[in-house]
C-alpha cells in the first residue's frame, strides 16, 4: 500500500469531516445570492473563528484523554480582560478590591499598547490552562471535575471584571481583524494601503481565516512534532505504555492543558475584538464549551484520546456553524430549526463512525 493511501486510511474520520463540510459549504454558496464573494467569506470566517479556536483548545486535552470543561469560561475571562487592555488609550488601570485600589500601571497608547495588551491576554489564557494542568496532574483529580471547578472560578473572575457587559475596544483593531486582508492593509497602512498590485489577489481573503491558519501553523504543527506533543497522543492511546516507555507523562499533560488555555485565550481575545466589548455571559460560555466538544467529535478526534488533530476540529467547528447558515437562506419554520440542526448533526457524526460497520474484530472498537 502506498504511503498516501495509508495516511488516508489512518485519517478516514478527518477526511470524511472535510468532505462533508466542503459539500455542504458549496451548496450554501451556490444558494446564497452573493455566494463566493469576499463579503460572505468574511462573515463566515468571523462567525467561525472563536468556535474554531475553542474547539482546537478542547482538542489538545482530549487527545490526552481528558475533557476540558473550562474552555468556554477561560475564553470568557480572557475576553473580559481584553475589554480593559485593548482600549487603545493610555488610561491607567487599577484593580478595585473591597475599597482598596491596586494600581496596575498603564499601557502605551496606539499600536504598541494594543500589541502588549494582546500578548497579556494570551498569557492569561495560557496561565489559566497551566492552572488546569497543575490541578489535574498534581491534584490528581479527574480532568472533567477539575476543569468544571476551575471553569467556575474563571467565570467568577470574568463576572468580577465585567458585572455588566461593557468596555470599548479600539475601533480600528476591530475593523482590521474582522474584515478582509484588503481592509486590514488599509487600516494599518501596509502594502500602499492595500492597493499594491501584487497584493490584489489576496485582498479578498478574510483576515480571521489567515489568523487561524497562522496560529495552527506556528503553534500547533511544531508542538505536535515535539516529543511532548507526541507524548500527548501516546497518553491518549495507552497511558501505561507511554509511562513505561519513559515518556514524561506529567509534563505532556500539563503542556496539553496549557496549550488548550492558550487557544481558548485566542478565541476569547478575538470574540472581544469582534464585539469590541467584554461580556461575562454564562450561558454563552456553556454553549461554547458544549459546541467545542461537538466540533472535536465531528472533526474525527476520538473522545477517548490518542487519535485526531486540531485541523479536524476546525472543520468540525465550521460544519457546526454551516448548518445554521442554511436557516438564513432556506425557509424553515423557526421553531423547527433546533430539530433540523440536531438531525443534521447526528447524521454528520454518524457518517464519521460508519467505519464501525466494517470492523471485523469487536476489540477494535475499544480504541
Amino acid at each position, binding site marked *: 500500500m502506498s504511503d498516501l493511501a495509508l495516511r488516508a486510511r489512518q485519517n478516514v474520520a478527518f477526511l470524511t469531516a472535510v468532505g462533508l463540510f466542503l459539500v455542504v459549504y458549496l451548496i450554501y454558496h451556490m444558494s446564497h445570492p452573493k455566494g463566493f464573494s469576499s463579503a*460572505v467569506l468574511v462573515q463566515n470566517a468571523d462567525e467561525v473563528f472563536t468556535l474554531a479556536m475553542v474547539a482546537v483548545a478542547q482538542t489538545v486535552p482530549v487527545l490526552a484523554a481528558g475533557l476540558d470543561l473550562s474552555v468556554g469560561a477561560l475564553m470568557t475571562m480572557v475576553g473580559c480582560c481584553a475589554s480593559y487592555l485593548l482600549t487603545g488609550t493610555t488610561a491607567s488601570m487599577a484593580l478595585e478590591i473591597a475599597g482598596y485600589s491596586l494600581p496596575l500601571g498603564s499601557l502605551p497608547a496606539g499600536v504598541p499598547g494594543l500589541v502588549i495588551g494582546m500578548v497579556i491576554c494570551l498569557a492569561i489564557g495560557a496561565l489559566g490552562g497551566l492552572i488546569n494542568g497543575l490541578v489535574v496532574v498534581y491534584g490528581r483529580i479527574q480532568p472533567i471535575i477539575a476543569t468544571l471547578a476551575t471553569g467556575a472560578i474563571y467565570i467568577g473572575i470574568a463576572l468580577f471584571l465585567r458585572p455588566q457587559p461593557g*468596555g470599548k475596544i479600539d475601533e480600528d483593531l476591530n475593523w482590521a481583524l474582522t474584515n478582509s486582508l484588503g481592509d486590514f492593509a488599509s*487600516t*494599518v497602512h501596509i502594502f500602499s494601503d492595500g492597493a499594491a498590485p501584487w497584493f490584489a489577489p489576496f485582498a479578498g481573503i478574510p483576515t480571521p481565516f489567515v489568523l487561524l491558519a497562522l496560529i495552527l501553523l506556528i503553534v500547533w504543527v511544531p508542538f505536535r512534532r515535539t516529543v511532548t506533543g507526541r507524548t500527548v497522543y501516546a497518553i491518549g492511546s495507552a497511558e501505561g505504555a507511554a509511562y513505561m516507555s519513559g515518556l514524561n507523562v506529567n509534563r505532556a499533560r500539563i503542556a496539553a492543558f496549557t496549550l488548550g488555555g492558550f487557544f481558548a485565550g485566542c478565541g476569547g481575545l478575538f470574540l472581544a475584538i469582534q464585539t469590541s466589548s467584554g461580556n461575562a455571559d454564562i450561558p454563552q460560555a456553556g454553549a461554547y464549551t458544549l459546541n467545542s466538544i461537538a466540533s472535536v467529535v465531528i472533526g474525527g478526534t476520538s473522545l477517548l484520546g490518542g487519535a485526531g488533530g486540531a485541523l479536524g476540529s476546525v472543520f468540525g467547528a465550521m460544519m457546526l456553524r454551516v448548518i445554521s447558515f442554511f436557516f438564513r437562506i432556506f425557509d424553515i419554520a423557526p421553531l423547527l430549526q433546533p430539530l433540523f440542526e440536531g438531525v443534521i448533526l447526528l447524521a454528520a457524526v454518524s457518517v464519521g463512525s460508519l467505519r464501525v460497520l466494517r470492523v471485523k474484530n469487536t476489540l477494535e472498537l475499544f480504541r
Partner: protein
Amino acid sequence: MNLRVSALALAAVFAATAALAGPKVVAGPGADAGCFKPWSDKTKFFQWEKKAGPYRIALVNGFVGNIWRIQMVKTAKAFAETPGIKENLKEFKVVSTGTDVAAQLGAMEDFINQGFDAIVTIAVAPDGFDRIIRLADKNNVVVVPFDNILDTDKVMMVNEDQHAMGVMSAHWLIDQMGKTAGDILEVRGLPGNSVDRDRHVGFREVMEAAPNKFNITEVVGNWDPGTSQKVTADALAVHKHFDGVFTQGGSDGTVRAMMDVKHPFVPMSGEGENRFRVQIADYAKDGLKGMSYGQSPALVAIAMKAAISALQGNVMPQLVSIPIPVADYKTLKAGENYFPDLKADFFAPNQFLPCGVTFTAPQIMSQSEANTK
C-alpha cells in the same frame, strides 16, 4: 505604521461614507406618533432614504425556548400575514441563534450580505454590535433592536420603559400596603441583562427614597416560574413574613411558593403572565392585591412596523416608547386582559391598537406553526 494617523484617515473615510449611507438625523415630529411615540423630549429623529417596496425583512432572535420567545416568534409570523403589512413584505425570515453573540452577529451580517432591507432583533447583549451597525449603515439596512436593546443611540430601537415598570411597582406596593416601612421581597430577573438592571434601579429609587424605611430582601428568579418558586420558598423559610412582593417574572411561581407555606396574601406587583393574572383574580378578595405590568411579546410587531415605516422614508424616533400594558385586581376582566379558561401559560398583554396589532394572546398561542406560515 502609525495607527493614530490611520485612525484619523479612516474616520475621514467613514465620515464621507456616512454622508451617503445610514440614517440622517432630522427634526421631529415623526410619522404615526400614536404608534411610534418618542422616548423623551430629547429623543433624536432618524430618516432613511426611501426605498421602493415590498421589502425583505429578517427577524434575528437570540435565545429561544421560553414561552415569551415562542409567543414572540408566533406573533411575528402572524403579523407578517396581516393586511397592511403583508403587501409590504416580499420575504420575512426568522432565525434563532441561541445565546452565542458571534452567531447572532453572523446571522445579521449574512442578511445584510443577502441584501435584506431591514433586520429586527433581540440583542443577546447590550454591547458589541458596533461593527454590524457600521455595515448596516454602509448598506442602507435598517436594524431595529427591541426588548433587550443596545446601549447606543446609533440605531432605531423599540421598547417599553423598564425603569418605569420598577417605579410603577414600587408606588403600587406603597399605596396598597398603606405604610412606608416593612419587609419587602424583590425577585429579580436574569443577571447581567439591561431589562433586569433597569427595573431593579427604578424600583429601588422609589422604595429607598426618604421617608421610606423598607427592609428589602433580594433573590434571583431568572424570570422563570420554577426558579422563582424555589427562591421565594427559600426566602420565606428565612424571613417568615413579607409585607409586599415585587417580581420581574415567573410571578405565578412566587405566588405558589407563598401559598405552599400558607403565607397570607399580600400586595404584589409582577409580570404579565396569564397564570399570575388568574391568581390575582382568584385571590384578590383574600388579600392578593396584585398589579400585573407586561413586557409584551407583541413588541416584535411594532418593531417590524417601525422597520417598514423607516424604509418608506418616514421620519422615525431613534427610541420608540411603547405604553406599558398594566392591569390590577380592580381592572382585570376575564376574556379581555386575562383568560381563566386557558391552561397553557402565555403572556396576556398582546394587543396594541394604536399600532394595528389587533390579535389577542390566545389567538396567537392556539395557532400552530403551519397556520402562521
